[in-house]
C-alpha cells in the first residue's frame, strides 16, 4: 500500500481527504462530499454557466500534462447536440514517474465521481466514464464500489439531487497501453478498438466518444472540480501563480530521501521541492539531473533547478511541467543508460500507427542500446539527434514528441558524457546489466 507523506509547505486541496478513509461514502459526505454538486444544482438555470465560469476563474489547467485550461475546454462543447454528450475521465496514468492519480483513486474515489458529475452538469451530459489503466485493478474495485455506493444513495442515476437531471457513470478498465493515455486513443479503446489516436480536427469537444461531443479530463483535474466549486474559482486561482491556478500533486521519485506524492502550489520552487519537501538527495549524494514532469520532459541539469513549478516557467526553462512526476537522478546515474531506458519505454509503447514514431523510436532505441553495450561511435550520437529532431512535430500524435524531446535533452545537455562513454570512459554505476537487456522495454 502506497505510503502517504506530508510536508508543511503542502497546500492540501485535492489531497485534503487523503488518509481519512474517504473512500467510504459516509466519510466522504462528512468531509463535505457531494456538496459541490448540490451547490451547482442550486444555481438552477444558471448552473452550466456558473460551473464553467467558476472553473475558468480558477485558472485550473489540465493535470494530465498538456495544461489546457479546463473551464475553456468545457465551454467548447456545443450546448445543443443531436448526439449524446459524454464526460470521460482519463485515469490511464502511465507516464513513467507519475503515480498521483493512483493516490486519488485510492484515497478519494468519490471526488472523481463528484467531479465527473459536475463536468456532466456543465456540458449537459448524462453519461460519464471513468477509465482506469488495466494495472490499477485494485483501484478499479475501489472506484466501482464508490460508484455503487453513490447509486445506492441515489446520488447517481435518475433525477440526481432532485435536479430532474439523470446522470450515470460507467467504470472501464484498460489492458496495458501507454498510448491510450492520449485522449482520442482512449476513446478508441473505450469503443473496443486498438488504442490508436484519431485524426484531429475534429476535436473531442465536437466529435468525441461514439461521435458525440465529449469532455475528457485527467482524473486529478476532475477531482479538483468539487473543491473549486466549494472554495470559489478566484480563491483557488490565488493559490497558484498567474495563469497557473491552484495547486497540484507532484510525485517526487528516484534518488530523494522522502519520495512521495505532495500537493504543492503551482509555481513552487523545484529546488525546494527536491531539497526540502522530498528531503534532498538520497544518502547525501550529489544531484546530477532532474526529469521534471514524467519521462517525456526534457531533462534539467543540477544547475537548472531554480525554476518555479508551473506550466509557463517550466516552458521557459526548456522543459515541461508535464504530469508532475519529478524524477531525481543522483551523480551515480549514467545518462547513457538512463536515456536508453527512457527511449526503450517509448519504443515499447509506440502504437505503430505513423512511420516517424514507430520507426524513429525503434532506431533510437537500437542505436542507444548498441552505444550502451560499447559498440557505439561518435556518429551515433549525431544520428540519434538527427532521428529525434526529425520526429519532433512530425508524428501523428504527441507520443513521438514525448520520445524525441527527452532524447534531445539527453544528447544535447550530456553530449560529452555520451562521447566519453563511447570512448570507454563510462561514467556512473550501471543499473542494468547486459543480460538484463531482454525484458519489457528491450
Amino acid at each position, binding site marked *: 500500500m502506497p505510503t502517504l507523506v506530508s510536508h508543511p509547505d503542502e497546500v492540501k486541496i485535492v489531497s485534503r481527504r487523503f488518509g481519512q478513509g474517504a473512500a467510504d461514502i459516509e466519510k466522504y459526505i462528512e468531509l463535505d462530499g457531494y456538496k459541490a454538486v448540490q451547490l451547482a444544482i442550486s444555481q438552477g438555470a444558471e448552473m452550466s454557466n456558473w460551473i464553467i465560469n467558476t472553473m475558468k476563474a480558477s485558472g485550473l489547467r489540465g493535470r494530465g500534462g498538456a495544461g489546457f485550461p479546463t473551464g475553456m475546454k468545457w465551454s467548447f462543447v456545443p450546448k445543443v447536440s443531436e448526439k449524446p454528450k459524454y464526460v470521460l475521465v482519463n485515469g490511464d496514468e*502511465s507516464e513513467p514517474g507519475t503515480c498521483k492519480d493512483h493516490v486519488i483513486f485510492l484515497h478519494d474515489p468519490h471526488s472523481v465521481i463528484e467531479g465527473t458529475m459536475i463536468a456532466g452538469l456543465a456540458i449537459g451530459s448524462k453519461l460519464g466514464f471513468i477509465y482506469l489503466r488495466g494495472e490499477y485493478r485494485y483501484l478499479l474495485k475501489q472506484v466501482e464500489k464508490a460508484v455503487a455506493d453513490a447509486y445506492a444513495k441515489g446520488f447517481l442515476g435518475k433525477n440526481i439531487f432532485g435536479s430532474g437531471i439523470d446522470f450515470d457513470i460507467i467504470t472501464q478498465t484498460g489492458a496495458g497501453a501507454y498510448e491510450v493515455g492520449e485522449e482520442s486513443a482512449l476513446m478508441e479503446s473505450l469503443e473496443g478498438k486498438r488504442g490508436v489516436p484519431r485524426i484531429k480536427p475534429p476535436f473531442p469537444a465536437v466529435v468525441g466518444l461514439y461521435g458525440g461531443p465529449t469532455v475528457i479530463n485527467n482524473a486529478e483535474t476532475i477531482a479538483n472540480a468539487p473543491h473549486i466549486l466549494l472554495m470559489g474559482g478566484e480563491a483557488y486561482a490565488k493559490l497558484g501563480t498567474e495563469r497557473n491556478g491552484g495547486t497540484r500533486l507532484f510525485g517526487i*521519485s528516484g534518488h530523494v530521501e522522502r519520495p512521495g506524492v505532495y500537493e504543492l502550489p503551482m509555481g513552487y520552487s523545484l529546488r525546494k521541492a527536491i531539497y526540502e519537501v522530498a528531503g534532498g538527495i538520497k544518502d547525501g549524494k550529489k544531484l546530477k539531473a532532474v526529469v521534471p514532469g514524467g519521462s517525456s520532459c526534457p531533462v534539467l541539469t543540477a544547475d537548472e533547478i531554480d525554476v518555479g513549478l508551473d506550466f509557463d516557467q517550466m516552458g521557459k526553462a526548456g522543459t515541461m511541467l508535464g504530469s508532475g512526476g519529478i524524477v531525481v537522478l543522483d551523480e551515480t546515474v549514467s545518462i547513457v543508460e538512463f536515456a536508453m531506458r527512457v527511449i526503450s519505454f517509448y519504443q515499447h509503447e509506440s502504437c505503430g500507427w505513423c512511420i516517424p514514431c514507430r520507426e524513429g523510436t525503434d532506431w533510437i532505441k537500437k542505436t542507444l542500446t548498441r552505444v550502451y553495450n560499447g559498440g557505439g561511435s561518435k556518429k551515433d550520437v549525431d544520428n540519434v539527434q538527427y532521428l529525434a529532431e526529425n520526429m519532433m512535430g512530425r508524428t501523428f500524435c504527441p507520443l513521438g514528441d514525448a520520445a524525441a524531446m527527452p532524447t534531445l535533452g539527453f544528447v544535447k545537455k550530456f553530449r560529452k558524457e555520451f562521447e566519453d562513454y563511447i570512448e570507454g570512459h563510462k561514467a556512473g554505476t550501471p543499473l542494468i546489466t547486459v543480460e538484463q537487456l531482454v525484458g519489457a522495454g528491450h
Partner: protein
Amino acid sequence: MSTVTNTIFSPELAARFDHLVTIYPVKRSALVPMLLYAQDEIGYVSDAAVSEIAVRIGINDLEVRNVLSYYSMLRTKPAGKYNVQVCTNISCMLRGGYGILDHCKKTLGIGHKETTADGTFSLEEVECIGACCWAPAMQVNYDFHDGLTPEKVDVVLQQYRDGQGKDVK
C-alpha cells in the same frame, strides 16, 4: 442463463458478460474488459475465448485479434498462477528495480515471460506500473508490492507459494 449456449466461461463470468454488453451505448465497448476478465479466468485469451467474445460483441474473430494483440497485458499463451511483474522503468530502475528483477529470476529460476515448471509463477519485466514514489515495485497478478528489497520479495513470493497472497481479480 447465458445468452451464448455452450459458453466456455464459468456461469458467473458468462452472466457478467451478458450484462456487460448491455451497459454501453455500443456493445463493442465491452471488448477490452471482456478480454481481460476472460484472461483472469482462463489464464490467457484462448482461441475459443476469442471466438466466443467475437460472437458476444457481434464482430469477427480477426477484429478481436487486432484489439487483443494491441494491449500488453493481454496474452495468448498461459502464464503462471501468479504472474510476477517487476517494473524496471526509470523511477524503479533508480531505486534498484533491475536488482529486484534479477533476484526474481534467480529465486524463481525463470526469465522474462517464462513460467516455473510447476506453473505457480511466471515472471515478466514490465513498464511503469504507476508506483513510482514507492519504488521499486512489482505486481503479482493485480496486487501491488512496493518499497521492495530482495528480502521483501522473498517474503512476498513465499506468501503466494503458501497460498496466502492476495489474488485481486
